[in-house]
């Protein structure tokens, strides 16, 4: 290594260092370059398509189990029973956000679009169990029991109606009367038998603006 190279080496070291230091100095003195968001005070706006915590609007949920089947990590669990009107009644709908990977597959497949991603993303807990979001707060067993009772009642009622109708019919036949009122009776039966299940069962306070609430806060 000749003296020229030696000196050039030193010169290069000084020059490149100075170049770098000029850039850092510019960042250092220019307050516009500061990009920090002071988190708890300033918040960043999640975008429209942001995939935050899942929220299921159980009023519109049809318990079709599409979300359960599509979930790659099985974080959604759903229990439902067939109600008196042949529609499914949700007994429990839980999402384990500790396992959820926010892939959005369940939201895409949801036929009634009741399952949505909210913009909520803040949650901390010391217990894994707290990470399970319950969308139905009533005990699943109670709902089942109630629905079963209603189904039984409806069935009994229908049976009674039927029996009544039949007896009426028989009477009518006996009396050689006109058409019995069985259709009307059957029409009456379901409304009274229907428990208005989802809304009632949920006991959820939220309605219209529910989607804006963070699911984490919905727990009691």
């Amino acid at each position, binding site marked *: 290594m000749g003296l020229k190279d030696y000196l050039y080496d030193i010169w290069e070291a000084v020059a490149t260092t100075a170049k770098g230091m000029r850039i*850092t100095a510019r960042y250092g003195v220019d307050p516009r370059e500061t990009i920090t968001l002071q988190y708890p005070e300033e918040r960043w706006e999640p975008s429209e398509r942001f995939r935050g915590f899942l929220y299921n609007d159980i009023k519109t949920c049809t318990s079709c189990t599409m979300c359960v089947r599509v979930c790659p990590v099985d974080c959604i669990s759903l229990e439902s029973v067939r109600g008196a009107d042949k529609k499914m009644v949700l007994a429990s709908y839980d999402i384990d956000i500790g396992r959820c990977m926010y892939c959005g597959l369940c939201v895409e497949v949801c036929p009634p679009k009741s399952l949505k991603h909210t913009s909520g993303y803040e949650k901390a807990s010391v217990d894994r169990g707290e990470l399970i979001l319950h969308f139905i707060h009533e005990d699943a067993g109670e709902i089942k029991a109630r629905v079963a009772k209603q189904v039984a009642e409806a069935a009994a009622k229908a049976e009674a109606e039927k029996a009544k109708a039949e007896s009426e019919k028989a009477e009518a036949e006996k009396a050689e009367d006109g058409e019995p009122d069985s259709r009307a009776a059957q029409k009456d039966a379901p409304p009274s038998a229907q428990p208005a299940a989802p809304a009632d069962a949920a006991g959820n306070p939220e309605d219209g603006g529910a989607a804006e609430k963070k699911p984490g806060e919905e727990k009691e």
Partner: protein
Amino acid sequence: MMESLAISLVDALPVLSGVPLWTITLLVMVMVAAVVLTFALTYSGLATYVERKVAGDIQARVGPNRVGPVGILQFLADGIKLLLKEDIIPAKADRFLFVLAPYLVFIGSFAAFVVVPFGVGLIASDLNIGIYYLMAITSLVVVGVMLAGWSSNNKWALLGGMRAAAQIVSYEIPVGMALLPAVLIAGSLSLQDIVRSQGGLFGIFGWNLFHNPFTFLSFFLYYVAALAETNRTPFDIPEAESELVSGYHVEYSGIRFAFFFLAEYGDMFVVSALATACFLGGWHVPFLDAEALPALWGNLLSLGVFLGKTLSLVVLMMWIRWTLPRLRVDQLMRMAWKYLVPLTFVNLLGVSLWLLLFHGEGIPRMIASLFG
């Protein structure tokens, strides 16, 4: 000096005339030591805050901003946290040495404050071998660092300790060599004398920095070598976070870690202060003669000027740290032995020749004499 202080104290307060002089002298010594230590600790604490703030600014962040106004009390919070932390000593560590090491480092770093000429009359002890003492006492740091590396019984720490030893021992030479021009010019090892020799010429052009081209170069050589002495990036290979995890203090926690941490900032101050005293005119106030001012004002003003110069050098160190990557250990050694040592020798030769040829006159003074 302490004795004279004690005598003047007795003169001022006749109540003390019954007390033996040596007790008062001892008392004065303790008080001065306490003042210096308090200053050193406060400075170190604030320097950690400034370091983080500088880093934040450079990195387009904010830095600490939660504790106190603009986060200035962050260092207190950190200190309290470190104090309250569990003190962990590894099971297989050499307990005695492990405990001893941080103190050695701390002493090595903070004992150097004794000879730092803060102002016209503000020096804890104006030793006539000031520079020599300073270099000797800062070498104590390497003993502590090596002990820390060895006694932790951790291979990363050991590597860090060994690297530190090699590095500091190597860089002692260029540091000493780069400081010698100032000693030659002043003709004294006392830091006060060196600072005094740089007076006059508006308090700026008397600096050794402008004395002649060789002293100008000397300053930069010293600064680079001193950076290495303090284990700062780009020479922070004993800590080398990305290689050695955290180097020699990897096993230290709590207050013992704080000692290492404070010592690093203490070191930064000491080497910057030395650079200021030897090359940047020390406490000489620009356009004023500090020594001619009334004692209180002279001292305060010179203290301010001295701290200003020194702390700008400290901030420069921080700026360098947050810009540059780190050298490899062999490159570091090459830099010391192939670049710094030869250059400082050439430099020393140049300064000696200059002094011989021009009878100790610097360029500014020659120019000044041209204009009468």
